[in-house]
């Protein structure tokens, strides 16, 4: 299984990432999730902070776990950091497999664990005020269904 993990300020190219995963027809199925900064009232900026090295290590652990649960040929996780605007892309999780259901399930598994385990923090700017986004308890519930 090929695993690509990138934490970056720049945007990403879905065509290039998904094509790289499909590997010229080695995998028939690529499921992917693209997350965007939602447009919300007076939200002007979303600033993402993370814990360098641990982020990559944690995502690698999650990808490895996904690879033991499902027959995957590749996993790509890209997470942006820094200052983002409403409508900007934040995250890509893409999973390739010979089997469509494996690709879907592993992609959802990775998103659920990314939301609860990967050390990123969002700060919102609204007008001249900044505040830290609160963790969503619904995300903890989402993770529970994958526990063995």
């Amino acid at each position: 299984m090929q695993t690509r993990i990138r934490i970056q300020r720049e945007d990403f190219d879905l065509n290039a990432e998904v094509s790289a995963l499909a590997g010229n027809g080695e995998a028939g199925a690529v499921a992917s999730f693209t997350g965007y900064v939602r447009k919300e009232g007076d939200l002007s900026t979303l600033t993402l902070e993370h814990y360098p090295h641990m982020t990559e290590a944690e995502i690698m652990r999650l990808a490895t776990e996904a690879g033991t649960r499902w027959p995957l040929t590749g996993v790509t996780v890209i997470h942006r950091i820094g200052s983002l605007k409403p409508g900007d892309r934040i995250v890509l999780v893409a999973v390739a497999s010979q089997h469509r259901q494996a690709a879907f399930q592993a992609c959802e598994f990775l998103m659920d664990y990314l939301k609860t385990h990967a050390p990123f923090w969002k700060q919102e700017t609204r007008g001249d005020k900044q505040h830290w986004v609160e963790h969503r308890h619904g995300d903890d519930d989402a993770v529970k269904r994958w526990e063995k």
Partner: protein
Amino acid sequence: MNLLYFAWVRQKIGKSEEQLTPPAKDVASLIAHLKNLGPNYTEAFADLSRIRIAVNQCHAGLDASLGPDDEVAFFPPVTGG
């Protein structure tokens, strides 16, 4: 011991990183030690239900044991993705 703080924990404590040699063998006793260093630490660690911990870049609990070369990070529940 290398200590790291992120997000509002970093803001409350007023620094992102520091080197300490605390008399602490686990995370709980490290936190007890830190809370005596000043009101900024006391406030940051006032409600431990809002604090998450990593030891050597792995998620850990209050009972995780610590050695002098460990990297310990304190941060709020994560909000990425």
